[in-house]
């Protein structure tokens, strides 16, 4: 699960001389929130987000109405973009969780993906959320069970073997520390072709483990 497989290749991009009016229209029409700005050879020059297009009211306060019109129409993407040296980027080969860590850490919504200095794609929070959906197999029907188990080696294996013993298949599986309880671990599995009651019955037999949530989705 690397960035290169989940990014959007060939993103829509702008040239630095594009006016902000056009950039705004371009982003609106195509329903995108991030617009990498590139020069010759797709070299990254900057990034325009919806935020960059907001006009600073303080700046406009001192201008009269005619000046505002002129000021706005003269603005180009180059004037408002986040400059390349301030744009956080990733290489194609990093894992998607690493991309997520960077985005969470910097509190940003997108990362242009570079290959040898050239923009090859873009990965956004939506790409990562879509991947989360896939990880949880949301496109397939099944029984989704969350089991709270002690935070120690071998617990997940116990649970998986209980499922395997019934001959069921696991569509998706994930785990995270239980909220507000460092001694526990929440494992979530999605099981295909199994009745809810039987799933509950099978998992209840596992020692030290507790079903905290079960639903057919």
């Amino acid at each position, binding site marked *: 699960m690397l960035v290169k497989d989940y990014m959007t*290749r*060939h993103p829509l991009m702008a040239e630095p001389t594009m006016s902000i009016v056009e950039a705004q229209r*371009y982003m609106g029409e*195509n329903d*995108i929130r991030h617009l990498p700005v590139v020069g010759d050879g*797709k070299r990254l020059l900057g990034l325009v987000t919806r935020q960059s297009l907001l006009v600073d009211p303080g700046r406009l306060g001192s201008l009269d109405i005619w000046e505002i019109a002129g000021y706005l129409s003269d603005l180009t993407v180059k004037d408002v973009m986040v400059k390349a040296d301030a744009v956080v980027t990733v290489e194609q080969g990093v894992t998607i969780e690493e991309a997520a860590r960077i985005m969470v850490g910097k509190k940003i919504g997108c990362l242009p993906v570079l290959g040898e200095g*050239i923009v090859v794609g873009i990965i956004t929070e939506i790409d990562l*959320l879509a991947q989360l*959906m896939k990880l949880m197999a949301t496109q397939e029907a099944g029984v989704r069970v969350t089991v709270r188990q002690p935070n120690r080696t071998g617990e997940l294996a116990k649970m998986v073997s209980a499922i395997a013993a019934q001959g069921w298949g696991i569509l998706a599986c994930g785990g995270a520390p239980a909220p507000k309880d460092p001694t526990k671990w929440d494992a979530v599995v999605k099981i295909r072709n199994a009745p809810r009651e039987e799933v509950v019955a099978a998992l209840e037999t596992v020692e030290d483990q507790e079903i905290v949530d079960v639903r057919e989705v």
Partner: protein
Amino acid sequence: MSADLEWTTDMDDHGIKTPILQVDDLAISYETRTGDVPAVRDVSFEIQRGEAHGIVGESGCGKSTVAFGIVNFLGRNGRIVDGHILFQGQDLVGRSQEELRRIRGDRIAMVYQDPMQALNPSMRLGDQMTEVLTVHRDVEQKKAEEKCIQMLERVYMPDPANVMRRYPHQISGGQQQRVVIAMALLNDPALLIMDEPTTALDVTVEAAVLDLIAELQRDFDTAIMYISHNLGVIARVSTKVGVMYAGELVERASVKDVYLKPYHPYTQGLMRCVPRLGMDKTSSYLYPIPGRVPSPKNLPAGCVYEPRCDYAREECRLKKPELREIEADRWARCHFAEEIAQVSWEPPADLVPDLAALEERDEVTETILEITNAKTYYEAPSKQLIGGEAQYVKAVDDVSFGVKKGQTLGIVGESGCGKSTLVKTIIGMEEPTGGEFEFMGVDVSSPVSQRDLALIQELQMVFQNPDSTLNPSFTVGTQIGRPLRRFKTVPGDQVRAEVVRLLEMMRLNESYYNRLPRQLSGGEKQRVGIARAIAGRPELVLCDEPVSALDVSVQAAVLNLLLEIQEEIGTTMIFIAHDLSVVRFFCDVIGVMYLGQFAEIGPAEAIYAPPYHPYTEALLSAVPIPDPSVEQKHIRLSGNVPSALNPPGGCRFHTRCPRRTEMLSDGGTICETEVPPERTAEDGHRIFCHIPLEDLRQMEPVVTTTE
């Protein structure tokens, strides 16, 4: 948010929905002295991200003009007069060159038909390739080289580092096309336009290049606009297809739909005029589309296809149909699309073939041409400066076969296998190096200049390219009349009448008598070429790729004509072609040639079913078939045809044979040293292979129909 809505969320659909390319009502005209020529009108289509979209149509229908419009290569006199071309949501129409360059930059790449024209012959391939990176991107020379080598590896170029040092003429056509594709991909374009990229290549090479394109499209997520006249090729690489006719898009849908249920009468006509693999002349008939594509200067007022359409009604003459959506994602430009798709098409009465008559005339035993151990070598200069032994290109090396009277022998094989040389030797244009050539009991190994007139008259030839074989400054009548006068077929005062009779036989009327070749279409020229060849009523007509330069609808008409002539005057034919469906349709006996020798020769139906020679099997597996219900085995030959200057020892095919290691006990070492034996199956079907006939018989058929 309701639960229902959640379920309809498609996770692969969260990305950018803007199509890579969106063409809206595009119209392109060329300015000429006599006014504007509207070459393209009302063309609309879109290509989504990572999608391959085919554009199919006959020559002159505006396919390439659309492509040139997109990349702004229309030339000085071409311009976009209406419509929009949106590339990734940005309109390309009405921008200055500089703006265009910035928007499009290196995000659109194009691959042309002839790779030699796209490569600079005076620069090493490595320099040309690295230039793409060093000029646009300031990449260091060394780094650029590395990247180019990687890309060449990606397109399966053998020995890429070495190829970088060579000049374009030092690699084969298939490899040149790979270099061009690699160059196009160096900039990782969002859209790749390919204009007939495989048309100039052999079927086996074409198959490999098509596989490559499909693979690259998947890996690089590149949208492809694929232009071709061959529906089979389109079906192999693309999912959607637009059919163009006379500058308009007449139908647009998924490849499968177009093939199974074409709505537009032109598309239906196209399907009927192409022989499918497995069709033969005794059980089926090709239905050519009558008439020809209207000139863009002289378009009909109503539907552009109306003059050639079997379903045309008053409304079609008066009102121009719009491209409309008939079913979901199926567009057609026809007033009566729904109706005609239901009606089963009946061929017009004058076209109904007399298949029974064809059936009857077999059981001829008289052999008209007998060739034993034919050899034609070309002397190549020695590589040493002084002395050294002369080398020989063994173009035809030890070929034996016979042709029976009234039959058609088809010869197939990749380019450079000696098909044309063999035919030229028979007709006397090349001097044979050895072997016996007996035609109707007479020795014909002498060159044409030493043959007597009677013999020349009996052996005639139809050439591939009618443009270069008709004298541009003589009228059609004079050219057809010349053999009549030379051979004194008819008395001098009846020459004109005879020429007119021949023209009528070719379905050309008397008005063609005084025309010059430039006033004829390609198909008409080829008919004149055929008329000239049969004027002297020869016994044997040698056809060297007579239909490969023609459009499919014209090709059908010419093939039918040849069949009729053969029926009428009982001529024997040798027919060279590279299209295996055409050969299968047209010929009684087929010989498959490889490097100057026959790999397999036998009755047509026997060649297309097991036992196969491994080479025939590979050829059949490479033929692009547009029928989605047909399944084809995937066999690809590696490498190129070895040089005939120094052919491999033993079996000439052993260097590329995919079968020998798996089907022969000792891994096929015998193939490298010993010449393969001739194995005879039923009906004079001969296969030259070390693999025993029983094992060859066990092979699965290459083409199977799954219903």
